[in-house]
């Protein structure tokens, strides 16, 4: 292998890219845009996927819902007692929650009133960190609430204020705001009004022995499927979901959203490849003469092809690296400008930090899809340049 020769060809290729700056930039800039688009989409989606994977370890092993007329409805606490009798079941916690559709300054928004069983709830060890101001609910708290940031900002509510929610049917609820969750956990809490299960039950008109769903914890996660099967066999009008099913739902939802972006990105990539083809296939008079001179000086067809391919490789590497870097930074900034599309809603969550995740597989994949198509598209124009007859081009 003649290493100095290849180094010289590389140097010549880089010199060419510098000399024909406009042409090089015409390929690199669109490539940066295309790679930035796919990168921020992959990293944002990767963040949700990664979070879903981690969250699986913190979820109840099984979630049980009541089904009425084919729709999700209330579930009786008699079912709770039955589930508690199943071997391997450690704890069953009822939950009562519902939506609060509201008008905020002409915008329709939906918030969620979440009632937790404060005596049974498995509090996260780091929960105190999540409270920006005030404190979280403790067992025995009644008519008190902790708000997600979205709710607090929308209603300009602070700790110590009272939140009065009333409907036209005469149902009322008044809660003292004792805590507001921080920005970091907005992704799971921005629309939440967290109250005790008794308050939620009274607000939504549930009976004492009713709940929205039941969270089942087993003695070991490996037993989740077995317990889920036992619960499924107990009644017909219930829906049983394991933590794996819930995790898969998150992945499916964001996978679909990612799919839309991938389709858009594919169109952009094709446009860039056509541009590369057009730029490379058109060999100008100057370039033809240069190649003619090089061949007259002893360069072979293979050397010219190698030089042209190295030019494409350098452009691909530069465009892909800059694009991936820009996409990463853009995702870390919260995809300003298009975050509404990325997240599925825009008007009620103006600030919404989302987890961003970048792994080595994603990076390798991005470099492959950024560089390989460019190399393939450049191959024929490189060959066309390589077979230029020096005699014809130099003589004009």
């Amino acid at each position, binding site marked *: 292998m003649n290493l100095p020769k290849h180094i010289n060809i590389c140097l010549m290729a880089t010199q060419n890219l510098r000399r024909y700056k406009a042409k090089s930039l015409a390929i690199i800039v669109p490539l940066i845009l295309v790679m930035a688009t796919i990168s921020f989409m992959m990293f944002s989606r990767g963040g949700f996927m990664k979070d879903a994977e981690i969250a699986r370890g913190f979820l109840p092993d099984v979630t049980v819902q009541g089904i009425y007329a084919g729709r999700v409805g209330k579930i009786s606490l008699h079912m709770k007692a039955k589930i508690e009798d199943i071997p391997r079941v450690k704890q069953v916690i009822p939950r009562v929650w519902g939506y609060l559709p509201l008008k905020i300054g002409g915008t329709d928004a939906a918030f969620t009133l979440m009632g937790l069983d404060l005596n049974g709830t498995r509090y996260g060890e780091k929960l105190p960190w999540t409270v920006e101001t005030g404190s979280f609910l403790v067992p025995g708290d009644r008519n008190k609430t902790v708000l997600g940031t979205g709710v607090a900002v929308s209603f300009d509510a602070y700790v110590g*204020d009272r939140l009065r929610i009333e409907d036209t049917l005469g149902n009322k609820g008044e809660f003292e705001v004792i805590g507001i969750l921080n920005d970091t956990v907005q992704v799971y809490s921005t629309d939440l009004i967290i109250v005790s299960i008794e308050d939620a039950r009274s607000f939504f008109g549930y009976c004492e022995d009713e709940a929205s769903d039941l969270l089942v914890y087993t003695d070991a996660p490996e037993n989740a499927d077995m317990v889920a099967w036992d619960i499924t066999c107990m009644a017909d009008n219930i829906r049983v979901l394991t933590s794996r099913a819930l995790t898969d739902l998150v992945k499916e939802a964001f996978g679909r959203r990612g799919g839309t972006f991938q389709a858009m990105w594919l169109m952009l990539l094709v446009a860039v490849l056509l541009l590369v083809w057009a730029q490379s296939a058109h060999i100008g008079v100057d370039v033809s003469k240069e190649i003619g001179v090089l061949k007259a000086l002893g360069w072979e067809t293979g050397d010219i092809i190698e030089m042209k391919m190295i030019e494409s490789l350098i452009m691909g590497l530069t465009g892909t690296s800059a694009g991936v870097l820009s996409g990463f930074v853009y995702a870390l900034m919260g995809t300003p400008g298009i975050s509404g599309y990325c997240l599925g809603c825009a008007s009620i969550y103006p600030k919404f930090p989302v987890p961003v995740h970048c792994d080595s597989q994603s990076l390798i994949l991005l470099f492959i899809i950024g560089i390989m198509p460019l190399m393939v598209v450049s191959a024929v124009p490189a060959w066309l340049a390589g077979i230029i007859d020096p005699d014809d081009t130099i003589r004009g």
Partner: protein
Amino acid sequence: MIISLIGLYLYNDRIATNYELSKDTQMRMAVVKTLGGPAIPIIAQCCTSRNLAEGIYARRSDIPGGFCFHSDCDVVVTPGVISEKVYRVTVIKKKT
């Protein structure tokens, strides 16, 4: 450029996604554990879907014939039924 990328990757891993190292992730998981579900308000491409498992039910919401309450949702349009205005929230400010 590659060095910047590695730097950002390490920063992101430490700050946002690695459970052992990231305080942010530990906080998010504390909320998930306490609530009992990864109830992302944007799930199923619709902010009305607090229940992860509802899927199509959430888009139809709880009103017969009604659809999504959220006007910006790109799945379905807001029908503009009277049920949208059922609830009202008032904040009574703390006396200082």
